[in-house]
């Protein structure tokens, strides 16, 4: 989505969601796009079956937007991974799946339904959030929408960033993170910034962005968007995740870090995370079938303690030490850095300290202000 934002080819509307204001807003913003009301399980199964019958069901699913009512909970703790150190992040499941098509994306095998879903019952979300925040009122909280989908990829027709920012503006003690690879920041720039609203970008080398992040803008464009957002007054975050070993990775990541510190005032950086490429073993087959040209699957992976495939430890260490070292060297010691789903030993050797657990990481990321 470098310059042209994503639009679905078809909108499917769960009958129950028809009367919600968000449904009407989205449909108004997607006028001219064919729409179908799905009544009952049988019609839904038929629509899913049609997508699953395509040669590449995932690609086909990305052409369909499904508007539905969230029946379960919106807010959940980030699932993280067993046996490694987490960070007590919370996720809001407002949308599932993503129009971008990153080769390494875990969502390829993670979600039950093939299309992009937006949940429209916002009133239920606000109510649930009220209860959740009340229960956790005495702690520092980070919460975001970018776990099972991109926070901003659909924002030009959902305008959900606006709803979320309005809500969290009244909760200055809670950090809302909108995580994206896109440059879809028009709605963000139109709103008054606040220190607890963090807009963050996933970064990689330009080479990896071109080869492995199909549909995503170039990394420089993402940094340019981050610069605009930071200049507007928002704190920004960055996620070097997944760090991928590939020919020229040292130079590639050095280039991104150099651009990052040159383009974005480091004082506006709320946090930067580092995570190395990791995935459940069964995803490898999907990745190779959908992206036969990728070379990322041929590095030295081992089964980690959580069963996921990840680079052999010294290879991960090299990635982390290189990128973290450059961030510290060029960006300064004050930028809060953390590792996503890593072991105590890697924390010790990369960050110079070992968190005693999730709480400890959370505390280290609490606002510098």
């Amino acid at each position, binding site marked *: 989505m470098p310059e042209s934002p994503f639009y679905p080819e078809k909108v499917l509307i769960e009958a129950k969601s028809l009367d919600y204001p968000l449904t009407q807003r989205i449909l108004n913003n997607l006028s001219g796009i064919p729409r179908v009301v799905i009544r009952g399980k049988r019609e839904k199964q038929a629509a899913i079956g049609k997508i699953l019958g395509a040669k590449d069901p995932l690609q086909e699913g990305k052409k369909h937007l499904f508007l539905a009512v969230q029946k379960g909970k919106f807010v959940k703790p980030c699932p993280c991974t067993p046996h490694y150190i987490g960070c007590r992040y919370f996720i809001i499941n407002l949308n599932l799946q993503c129009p971008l098509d990153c080769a390494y994306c875990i969502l390829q095998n993670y979600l039950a339904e093939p299309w992009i879903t937006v949940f429209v019952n916002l009133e239920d979300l606000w109510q649930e959030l009220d209860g959740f925040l009340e229960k956790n009122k005495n702690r520092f909280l980070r919460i975001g929408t970018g776990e099972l989908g991109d926070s901003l990829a659909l924002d030009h027709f959902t305008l959900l960033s606006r709803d979320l920012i309005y809500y969290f503006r009244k909760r200055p003690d809670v950090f809302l993170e909108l995580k994206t690879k896109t440059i879809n920041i028009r709605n963000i720039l139109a709103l008054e910034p606040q220190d607890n609203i963090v807009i963050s970008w996933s970064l990689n080398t330009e080479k990896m962005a071109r080869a492995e992040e199909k549909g995503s803008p170039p990394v420089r464009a993402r940094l340019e968007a981050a610069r605009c957002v930071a200049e507007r007054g928002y704190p920004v975050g960055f996620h070097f995740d997944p760090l991928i070993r590939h020919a020229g990775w040292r130079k590639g990541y050095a280039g991104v870090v150099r651009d990052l510190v040159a383009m974005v005032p480091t004082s506006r950086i709320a946090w930067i995370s580092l995570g190395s490429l990791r995935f459940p073993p069964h995803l490898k087959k999907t990745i190779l*079938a959908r992206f036969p040209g990728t070379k990322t699957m041929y590095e030295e992976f*081992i089964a980690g303690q959580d069963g996921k495939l990840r680079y*052999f*430890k*010294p290879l991960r260490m090299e990635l982390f030490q290189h990128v973290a070292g450059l961030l510290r060297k060029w960006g300064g010691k004050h930028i809060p850095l953390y590792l996503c789903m890593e*072991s105590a*030993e890697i924390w010790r050797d990369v960050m110079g300290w070992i968190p005693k657990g999730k709480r400890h990481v959370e505390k280290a990321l609490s606002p510098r202000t």
Partner: protein
Amino acid sequence: MVKISGPVKISLNEIRLKDTRFQVSDFDSWEKLALSIRTIGLLQPPLVTKRRKGFVLVSGWKRVQACRKIGLSSIPIYVLDEPDDLKAFLIAVFDNAAVREFRLLEKAQIISKLGRFGMEKSRILKEMMPLLQVPPTDFYLESYIKIAALEPEAKRVIKEKSLPFSVVCMLVEFRPKDLKAILPILLPLGQNKQKEILEDLREISKKKDVSARKILGASEILQILRAEKWPAIQKSERLRTALRKMRHPRLSAWQDHFNRSLEELCWPKEVKIEPSSFFEDEWLSVTFRFKNEREFKARLDKLQEMARKEGLKNLWDAEGRLKKNRA
């Protein structure tokens, strides 16, 4: 409705055996059948159909071969009146499917021919693949078509060794020249090891952008392949280890370093020491057995002796020592 006439007796020479368009069977031997025909005669005449240049066999390949081998000059046949090749082929498929299960190469041949005779992909998936007991997905369809296109030598090995689908569909990813080099190495091994070798070869080849043949031509590999002192199974095992090292050089270096460090320490054989899985954690585990107090004390003495050795810390310093060696 199928129109069949006969049986009529014709000369065996009138059947164009070179025209194998309707052949689905991939039979191994005809000797038993020949004995049966010689003893009690041909009870079920083969089915042929007329084409421009003569009779083409639709079903009964094994019977015709057996009749030829025992020197019959003419045999009874049924004649199918069906000018459409796809329909005639379907008759051959159903005729066989009714009485037996197809083997892997037969399935591949049938699926490939159905496509060549013009059957739509969706029909192959929906109607034919379940009949052949093949999961009706694009992956299986494409894999079987690739299997059908394998060179005769590869097919011979697949058949002789009854290689399973999971191994064969890895083989089809290699070029014919590479396959020639790979097949002899695979044969002495069990399925899991076959898969491991193929996967390693494929991944090294993809990563380095070189053919499998070139990988197998590397000096350390050639040394193994050319060594006359080892039997085939041992060569294959050594090759498997060599490929593992190529595929996972860093992990292999750590494992080698660990083993070397134990040798340098003269680590006692009666005390087992192991790193964590893939060295993911720093801890090492030590286990030993003992029958009595004396043995217990002896093991502890050995461990204390190890603890006093300067080289003990090397067990945790694979990276540092490897770096030093590289420098």
